[in-house]
């Protein structure tokens, strides 16, 4: 796969898969206000997906659309990080995943606003406003639940322990990332780590949670080599309509 297409799929598949995961809460969140807020976040992410995958399809030049990329690829073609495909589990786990991803996403988009590719910088600038709000909201919720009741604290600590090993993948550049960085298209992923660690440390401390020292990292999502079993199940639900009724319009 050409570098730029591959890289754009990484951005677009992150927002697509997480957007779908978050949308699974629609109608099920613990309170109405959170339900609507999660639906807004999901819609923002799907909107960003249209831009990233729209550009990916354009760059690929095979006459495909963002919808084609979203609904007519299989799990092994997806380039999202493992973190976003993990199941929602409980509300606290969903919000912890959101907070960790938002914190990375905000730094990444901030760097991408300086991209040498104007199309990428434009998408980043539009997305950054939305993601800054997502990050503020999810950080507040992590603090509220972490520093909440004994039960909410324990659930948030368990979520952090479970999700932390999935963060490393987002900071480990491969050959594609390196070439993007050398061309001035994308920031160096490894260089985002210190800013990320500082944000996380502050919020986690305020939430009265404890971060493990381990830097063990699951990987294999961003290059498609080793997605979790969960992605295929999610795609089966997400893609069933366009695959059952190809070219349906509504």
């Amino acid at each position, binding site marked *: 796969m050409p570098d730029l297409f591959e890289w754009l799929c990484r951005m677009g598949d992150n927002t697509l898969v997480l957007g779908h995961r978050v949308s699974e809460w629609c109608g099920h969140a613990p*309170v109405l206000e959170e339900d*609507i807020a999660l639906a807004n976040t999901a819609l923002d992410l799907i909107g960003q997906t249209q831009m990233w995958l729209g550009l990916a399809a354009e760059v690929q030049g095979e006459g495909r659309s963002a919808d084609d990329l979203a609904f007519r690829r299989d799990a092994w073609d997806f380039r999202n990080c493992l973190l976003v495909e993990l199941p929602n589990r409980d509300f606290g786990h969903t919000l912890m995943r959101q907070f960790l991803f938002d914190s990375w996403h905000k730094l990444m988009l901030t760097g991408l606003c300086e991209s040498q590719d104007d199309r990428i910088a434009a998408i980043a600038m539009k997305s950054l406003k939305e993601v800054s*709000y997502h990050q503020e909201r999810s950080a507040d919720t992590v603090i509220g639940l972490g520093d909440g009741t004994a039960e909410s604290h324990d659930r948030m600590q368990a979520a952090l322990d479970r999700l932390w090993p999935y963060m490393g993948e987002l900071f480990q550049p491969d050959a594609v990332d390196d070439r993007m960085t050398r061309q001035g298209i994308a920031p160096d992923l490894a260089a985002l780590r210190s800013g990320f660690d500082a944000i996380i440390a502050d919020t986690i401390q305020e939430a009265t949670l404890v971060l493990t020292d381990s830097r063990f990292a699951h990987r294999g999502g961003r290059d498609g080599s080793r997605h979790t079993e969960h992605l295929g199940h999610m795609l089966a639900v997400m893609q069933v309509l366009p695959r059952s009724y190809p070219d349906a319009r509504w």
Partner: protein
Amino acid sequence: MSNEWPLWEVFIRGQHGMSHRHVGSLHAPDAEMAIKNARDVYTRRNEGVSIWVVPAAQIAASSPSDKGPLFDPSRSKVYRHPTFFDIPDDVGAM
């Protein structure tokens, strides 16, 4: 019901120069989250440029049973309505 978050009344200003208007209410654990929830519940279709939230418990309200003495006397006093003046267009929204 003591596990419920407190109720907040939400006021949104639709555009600069207009006043905040009551749009509804919601639950939230504190004022900051009430503003965030109001943003998500009441401004998702680009309705606002400013949000106020007020704890519903802090609002003092007139009693429905006082309706007669409070409001009936002003019913028949048409001379109190400033409808006999032409308002210049330049004044804008009143």
